[in-house]
């Protein structure tokens, strides 16, 4: 009986710890990230683009997560909702579907599109995709 209780207790503790880890993981990864994860492209032709998440957002004065991690429903941007718990590839396929841009185009529009609009930040291929 005592053994069984001990097992349950351990299980609960382990599962709680695991869920905390999983929940903390994306955030922890974001702080330390130095490049965009290109793992969703089958055989990427270029190196992953350089991106230091926190340093970038501090410099660019971006506070709201959904500036980049947006949510679209029925083709319309949803205010006050963000998607940092999901991967870009969850919505953006390798090929464009309807109005949803392809994964590559989504990345490029999100980064280069913004840089071009505000007139700051890298816009040439090799400035992000460094050899």
């Amino acid at each position: 009986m005592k053994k069984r209780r001990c097992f349950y207790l351990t299980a609960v503790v382990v599962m709680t710890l695991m869920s905390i880890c999983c929940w903390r993981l994306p955030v922890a990864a974001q702080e330390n990230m130095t490049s965009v994860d290109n793992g969703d492209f089958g055989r990427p032709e270029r190196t992953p683009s350089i991106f230091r998440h926190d340093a970038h957002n501090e410099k660019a004065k971006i506070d709201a997560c959904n500036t980049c991690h947006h949510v679209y429903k029925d083709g319309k941007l949803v205010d006050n909702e963000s998607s940092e718990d999901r991967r870009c590839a969850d919505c953006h396929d390798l090929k464009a579907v309807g109005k949803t841009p392809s994964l590559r185009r989504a990345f490029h529009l999100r980064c280069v599109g913004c840089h071009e609009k505000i007139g700051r930040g890298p816009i040439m291929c090799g400035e992000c995709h460094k050899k």
Partner: protein
Amino acid sequence: MDALYRFLSGPLAWVSFVVFIAGSLYRLLSMGFLVRRKEKFIFSVMSWKYSFRSIFHWITPFASVNMRRHPVMTITTFAFHICLFLTPIFLLAHGVLWDDAFNIHLWALPNGLADIMTLVVIAGGVFFLCRRMKLAEVRYLTTLSDYLLLIMVAAPFLTGFIAYHQWIDYRFFMTLHVLTGEIMLMAIPFTRLSHMLFAPFTRAYMGSEFGSVRHARDW
């Protein structure tokens, strides 16, 4: 450098495409009107059959006597022209520009292959340069403009190659690449690069005259 790159890849890109397309149409139409005014009889000898027979022979490697006499020149010129034409159109990085800007999807060459094709164009340019300087019959016909033309064609490929490999100063060579590419595009209708536009017509004319008037081969 950023402002210059923005200008070159923005407004000047539009200008160069408009100049290239409008200039090409102008050259073709004005040549057509000139022929109609001065040499109207040409239309009486023109024939689809002889035109395409000639074009076919001259776009097939070694299908003419002259090509068989100069095998090295033949191989070089075919490799040069094929790579010159295909590489810029089907380069992945160029396709990405079309995709990002206009949502237009083009099939793309693998980067490794495009890299080799770029080297073929550069090597072809060096070959033509040496040929101009060495062969008496070619040197006799050569003026400064021939060298400038060669440099103009090779420049976008050379700068593109250096920029792709991110050697020396990436941003400088990238900017220079866009500029030299646009200069070449705009020069096509107004320099001897216009053989790109006129070649099918001159070939068709030669083929037709040899076929319907002289009853001889022109290859």
